[in-house]
């Protein structure tokens, strides 16, 4: 009997990563000392701060893995991992560049035309432009292949009509990567889908805020009415959209943002309870830290597999399932260990962080593939379906 199920090769970060980590930490303590940001839970959704993103860009920490010929820094995926986890641990406002740095950059590099790469990538690396992604729709959530936004052939390009929902920061981003149906739905539901790159200032686009439970405006409904997209802004091949969006799910699903959204709260718990907590609290801290450390090892293993050129999409789905449940477990434990009054207007930091964590929590296990969908991916790999 060999190992059943899913296996992960243990991974350790190469030494160069630790020097980089020291630089990122120094930068983050300067930023905090200067009062340039306040750590928040889930700040990769909520913390939209173009100036912060540009200061990161100035250090060479945006588009790190992109090749130098496109203005990138030619660093490894593991080096990017280190920068990312340090930013999340600090609760830094990274939302402005998050989608571009994580997804659109690699997508453009893989599927973009030479002209698109020359045009977009240097601006992504410098923090000059920011990106949003349009996948879900009012009628399409987990069942992404059912998207109804349609692209019609017109002279010199395509006319896009439809509605995208839950689009993070569409109201503040510059460009919008949209998955559309470019051919009628046939027998193969995954055929006939295409990706387009749309300038969010194009006539025919209207953007309506969809506040989340905190009342904050991050999500949007983006309505497109015959929005013109020139042929030069088709991403990849017409009809290959499904393959293009699903081929990079491992990048989206295994990163540290899938278990660290509530890390600032865990850290604040340690501050509140001091250096000699009661036994029950010490045990809870130990249990939460154990889960965090195990998740980090798993996430690093997936990152190392990606760097080796493998496609660990099943392992990534599994890590995201465990990791996002941990994000909620943190506040479920913390609230019972201390006297608390979670509120978005609280003066006490832990009450504020708790409120952020609780009110953001439904998103943890929905975004980027619900946990039920992820377990379906794992079940398929286990030969159950």
């Amino acid at each position, binding site marked *: 009997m060999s190992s059943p199920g899913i*296996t*992960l090769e243990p991974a350790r970060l190469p030494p160069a990563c630790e020097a980089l980590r020291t630089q990122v930490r120094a930068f983050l303590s300067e930023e905090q000392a200067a009062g340039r940001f306040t750590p928040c839970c889930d700040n990769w959704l909520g913390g939209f701060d173009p100036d912060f993103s540009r200061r990161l860009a100035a250090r060479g920490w945006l588009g790190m893995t992109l090749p130098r010929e496109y203005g990138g820094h030619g660093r490894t995926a593991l080096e990017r991992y280190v920068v990312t986890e340090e930013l999340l641990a600090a609760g830094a406002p990274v939302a402005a560049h998050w989608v571009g740095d994580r997804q659109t950059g690699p997508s453009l590099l893989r599927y973009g035309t030479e002209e698109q790469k020359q045009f977009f990538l240097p601006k992504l690396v410098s923090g000059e432009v920011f990106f949003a992604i349009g996948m879900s729709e009012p009628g399409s959530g987990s069942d992404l292949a059912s998207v109804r936004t349609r692209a019609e052939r017109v002279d010199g390009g395509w006319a896009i009509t439809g509605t995208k929902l839950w689009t993070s920061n569409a109201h503040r981003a510059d460009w919008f990567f949209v998955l559309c149906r470019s051919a009628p739905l046939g027998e193969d539901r995954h055929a006939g889908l295409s990706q387009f790159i749309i300038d969010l200032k194009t006539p025919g686009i209207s953007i309506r805020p969809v506040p989340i439970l905190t009342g904050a405006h991050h999500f949007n409904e983006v309505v497109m009415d015959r929005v013109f997209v020139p042929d030069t802004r088709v991403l990849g091949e017409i009809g290959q959209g499904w393959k293009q969006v699903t081929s990079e799910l491992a990048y989206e699903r295994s990163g540290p943002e899938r278990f660290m959204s509530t890390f600032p709260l865990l850290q604040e718990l340690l501050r509140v309870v001091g*250096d000699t907590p009661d036994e029950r609290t010490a045990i809870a801290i130990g249990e939460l830290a154990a889960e965090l*450390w*195990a998740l980090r*090892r798993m996430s690093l293993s997936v990152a190392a597999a990606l760097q080796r050129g493998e496609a660990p999409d099943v392992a990534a789905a599994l890590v995201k399932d*465990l990791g996002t449940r941990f994000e909620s477990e943190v506040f479920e434990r913390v609230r019972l260990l201390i006297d608390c009054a979670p509120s978005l207007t609280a003066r006490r930091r832990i009450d504020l962080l708790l409120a952020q964590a609780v009110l953001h929590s439904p998103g943890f296990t929905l975004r980027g593939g619900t946990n039920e969908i*992820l377990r379906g991916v794992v079940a398929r790999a286990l030969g159950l*379906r």
Partner: protein
Amino acid sequence: MSDDTRQMLLDTLERVLADHCTAERVQAADQGGFDAALWQTLDELGYPLAAVPELAGGIGLPLPDLCALLRVCGRHCAPVPLAESAMLGAWLLAGAGLELPDGVLAVASVDPGLLKLTPQGDGLRLQGTVSSVAAARHASAIVLLVEYGGACRVTVLPPADYRLEAGDNLAGDARDDMHLDLTIDASRLHTAATGVTLEAFHARAALLRAALMTGALERALQQSLDYARERKQFGRALAAFQAIQQQLAILAAEVVAANAAVDHAAAVAETGPALDEIAVAKIRAGKAAGIACRIAHQVHGAMGFTQEYSLQHATRRLWAWREENGTETVWARRLGQRLAKSGADALWPLTTASGAVAD
């Protein structure tokens, strides 16, 4: 040692255990038993020397490889004390420069206060009871680790030196209480290898236990997957039901998590102190054990609730082993106290320092 040799040791163990560890033979060793024929085979193949340094005539496997061997043992629910005898007992003896006696070795470490240690003439009087010594009744000798005179000492006790009271754990593994009332000569107290403290020894034992648990977790997963594909209800295989698929995906994730924690702890422990990492490994394996046993039994229905069906060989071991060498609570308390003492600002640096390789 070459990767080929390592792989050969793993493959051979896999083959031997696959042959030997039928459900009947595993069941036959229940209630404090032990598979002497299997031990004999492993002995002939040299496995009791796995952790003994090459200089002392052993194989000298590093911890990650020892853990890999134990994962195979756990997967087959092998009713032999390879961890205790080879990787704790023989390892302690070799470290103290002692000859290895023939047969199974049991091992007992004595925390201060557990035994009464009194200097007597040239020797040391030992009085008291060490409880739950694994495989004691099957051992040709018990290797005892005590802290005395400011150092860790190793001594070998032949059966004449102790009286056993039989006991077992939830899995039916022999866990005997050892009663001692004797004086041993100073010449029998040997200084343990450098770096061996009671704390480090307990941690090593916990890591090995967690490695065994990952094997039993894999076994519980495999059996559940097989059963879900074979068993039909409502005209379909259980595997076709989403409710079952979701549960088995959760079980698979627990197995991956426990493996990741154990692999990391073994890698770090091979090169230095790894108390935190071992804490994480035992906590994570213990948590996985509870979830895995619940799901595996639920998927198996009443079938898995019987002694004649072999799922219990894995699940009873998991339930037993999560209590041994420190429960999740014991290790979490210790890890949590240490992290709290280091302070909030050290939480993240300590997290990333684990296993980090400096330039």
